[in-house]
């Protein structure tokens, strides 16, 4: 059977692409070091396929048709958008898909009981997917199953649906008749505000950041569910803070156990989440 050997949560802050270049500035060195640690874990765990959970930023998906959870079933994906190349200096990327695992996760002719996925066979992935992959696997040679979790266009799924997503991923991978070694890579934010009153002013809510790191450090899935169920609490913590829910999905996929690595460095940007669960 396939094995879920690693789950990682990283930031996808696209401003890093121009800022975190050699020589890496002092305040960004912990971020570079954490990406390197996860990059090395992906190598040492000999991962064959990555399930990548991210939140599209109103590029591929918009309010004319906004899925709660969308899974990619394409053979290949284009990476990043013209506006992200312009604004962030990002580089276009080409990624290979993994149809077999996508079918295992989302069903081929019938949806699984746990999650009603939207399906996409033509999808340009935005920075929420491309940035983590470019840092964690610069060769971009591991096939991916992208999953968009809507944490950007209210109404967003409740935290319990993110938990269900994580638990479903664990189950689908465990039951996949394959010798593949699978990793889950999710990206999101701690407290983060883009376009609101606290835009680009460091962390908009250090108290939320401390709570969120604690849930990962202590394996406190119930605590995460309790606080993230308070929609107003997430909104108050910044306009994009609901993307922390992607990290909750990773925690759920790992059975709610404490992460092996929890590091949330502060820098010129909002707090950067790095959580890693591994098997060695």
């Amino acid at each position: 059977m396939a094995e879920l050997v690693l789950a990682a949560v990283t930031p996808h802050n696209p401003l890093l692409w121009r800022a975190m270049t050699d020589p890496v500035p002092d305040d960004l060195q912990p971020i570079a070091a954490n990406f390197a640690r996860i990059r090395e874990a992906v190598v040492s765990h000999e991962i064959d396929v990555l399930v990548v959970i991210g939140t599209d930023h109103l590029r591929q998906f918009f309010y004319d048709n906004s899925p709660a959870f969308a899974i990619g079933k394409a053979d290949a994906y284009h990476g990043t958008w013209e506006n992200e190349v312009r604004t962030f200096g990002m580089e276009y990327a080409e990624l290979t898909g993994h149809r077999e695992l996508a079918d295992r996760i989302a069903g081929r002719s019938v949806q699984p009981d746990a999650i009603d996925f939207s399906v996409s066979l033509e999808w340009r992935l935005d920075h929420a997917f491309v940035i983590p992959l470019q840092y964690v696997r610069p060769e971009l040679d591991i096939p991916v199953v992208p999953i968009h979790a809507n944490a950007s266009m209210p109404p967003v799924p409740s935290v319990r649906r993110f938990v269900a997503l994580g638990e479903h991923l664990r189950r689908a991978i465990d039951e996949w008749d394959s010798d593949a070694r699978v990793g889950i890579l999710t990206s999101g934010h701690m407290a983060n505000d883009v376009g609101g009153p606290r835009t680009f002013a460091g962390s908009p809510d250090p108290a939320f950041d401390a709570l969120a790191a604690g849930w990962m450090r202590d394996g406190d899935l119930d605590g995460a569910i309790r606080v993230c169920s308070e929609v107003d609490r997430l909104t108050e913590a910044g306009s994009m803070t609901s993307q922390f829910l992607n990290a909750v999905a990773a925690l759920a996929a790992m059975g709610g156990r404490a992460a092996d690595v929890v590091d949330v460095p502060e820098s010129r940007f909002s707090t950067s989440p790095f959580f890693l669960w591994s098997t060695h």
Partner: protein
Amino acid sequence: MSRYMVDKFIRAVELGDATVAEYVADPPAFVERWLAGGGTPAGPTDDRVLTEAERAAFAARDFGALYSLGAHPYLLWHFTEAVYEHEYTEGFGWRELVERYRAAVAPQGLVDYIP
């Protein structure tokens, strides 16, 4: 109020380099051209409607007004960056634009941006 249309217009400008260039060259003219385009009763759905206040805000690149009209914050910031960055000078760059943006939106607090 038509927050959906505000967000739709922002995307129509911000997603591509060519549309950013066309908009900044003459914002009021771009707004009128955009409104005149769109779908037909028999064609693919592509509705385009803006209120007077929304048209005026886009014609003036007035991000403070667009924030109060309920633009999606993420879209609005990146729209602002895209349509002002050609005006960067030695004394007015990204950081100054961020500060100008924050000064416009912070007094308004959290505005309901859900369409």
